[in-house]
């Protein structure tokens, strides 16, 4: 696998997890498991020139150790979009790391460093496969297929009007379709396609609150979802958020475009930024519990007036 990888660790040094993450990143590079992996000199470097020179074939991975997610945030400040984000703290469910005061030299000898290096290595390997696959796929599509792939689902909703609420410099939109559009209290919408199927996405309000969405991960096609369970999880430059399903049912399609371009959710939350299609278990009953466009609009207005916008 000769993919060029740039791994950008946060280089944390305050908490044990930061120190261990840093050591793991350094160990991985030293192991030469990925011959073309290099660590970026320093994410905190003032001169940003170096970061804009990545070729499109370079796989860029941001490595965060704690949930401050410095690496992601700094890259975002520099307008660099990593292909994948890794957060070391998620490994902690299965691995115990030393607690309390440990010197760097004690941590260096701790077994958790090698275990986390291994986890990191496996995760990167997976991303390399996905990344290579995507590249091959893209080049195939370019040659053979101009457009209209048979399996892909095209979402063409019909909105009669947009309700708009202006607050400070922001404008929040809520579309209207009285028979087809439903909202829940967690800022997700569902558009009824007929035959018990709905398209699910997030509202303009939530999108603006999250700010730049960097990653959108769906539950797999075929997964059964209860009402208010997560159909997808997204990570933005500011926070982590789940998309809670307005309906219960089975996921039958996902918007794979979001894997490459999660910013579609920011740009066009009610159309191209759709997230999944669900085959509902109980459309009639559950839809009666949800809000209409006007109800959601008032709910959203109340929320904004009370809480402001998280910017």
């Amino acid at each position: 696998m000769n993919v060029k990888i740039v791994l950008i660790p946060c280089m944390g040094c305050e908490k044990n997890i930061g120190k261990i993450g840093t050591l793991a990143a350094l160990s991985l590079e030293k192991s030469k498991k990925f011959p073309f992996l290099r660590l970026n000199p320093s994410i905190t470097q003032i001169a940003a020139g170096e970061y804009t020179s990545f070729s499109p074939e370079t796989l860029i991975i941001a490595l965060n150790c704690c949930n401050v997610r410095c690496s992601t945030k700094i890259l975002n400040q520099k307008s660099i979009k990593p292909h994948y984000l890794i957060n070391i703290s998620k490994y902690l469910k299965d691995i115990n790391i030393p607690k309390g005061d440990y010197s760097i030299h004690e941590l260096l000898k701790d077994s958790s460093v090698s275990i986390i290096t291994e986890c990191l290595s496996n995760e990167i390997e997976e991303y390399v496969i996905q990344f290579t696959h995507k590249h091959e796929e893209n080049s195939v599509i370019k040659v053979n297929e101009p457009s209209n792939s048979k399996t892909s689902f095209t979402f063409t909703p019909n909105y009669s009007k947009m309700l708009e609420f202006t607050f400070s410099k922001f404008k929040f939109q809520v579309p209207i379709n009285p028979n087809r559009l439903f909202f829940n209290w967690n800022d997700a919408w569902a558009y009824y396609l007929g035959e018990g199927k709905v398209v699910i996405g997030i509202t303009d309000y939530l999108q603006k609150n999250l700010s730049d969405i960097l990653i959108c991960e769906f539950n797999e096609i075929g997964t059964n979802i209860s009402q208010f369970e997560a159909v997808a999880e997204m990570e933005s430059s500011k926070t982590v958020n789940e998309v809670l399903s307005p309906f219960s049912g089975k996921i039958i399609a996902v918007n794979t475009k979001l894997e490459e371009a999660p910013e579609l959710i920011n740009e066009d939350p009610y159309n191209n930024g759709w997230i999944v299609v669900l085959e509902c278990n109980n459309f009639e009953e559950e839809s009666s519990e949800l809000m209409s466009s006007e109800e959601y609009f008032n709910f959203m207005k109340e929320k904004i007036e009370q809480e402001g916008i998280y910017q």
Partner: protein
Amino acid sequence: MINSDKNRIPKQIHRFMGVDRKDIDWFPIIDFNKCNNCGDCVQFCAHGVFNMENGVLIVQNPKNCVVFCQACLKMCPKDALIFQEKKKVLAQIRQIKSQQKQSIDNY
């Protein structure tokens, strides 16, 4: 008024699915066997649910918690936050709704 101060506590949302938020038992519970009081959740939660009191994590505003939101659970490094099962809470909400409806009907 663009909100950038993480320390302020926004007012709670009063109703969820047509039910008074105060009647819904949805909030995090801290597993003190696991929690190391790192305070990441205090920083993370935009609704001011958590706070630190003398260096110990507390759930200060449980009813500020957004019903069915578990984002803090995702980011807790120690996996020390517990929520009720969504199904149970949903059943509770539906029960309250049907009681409300009944009392209106009886009236």
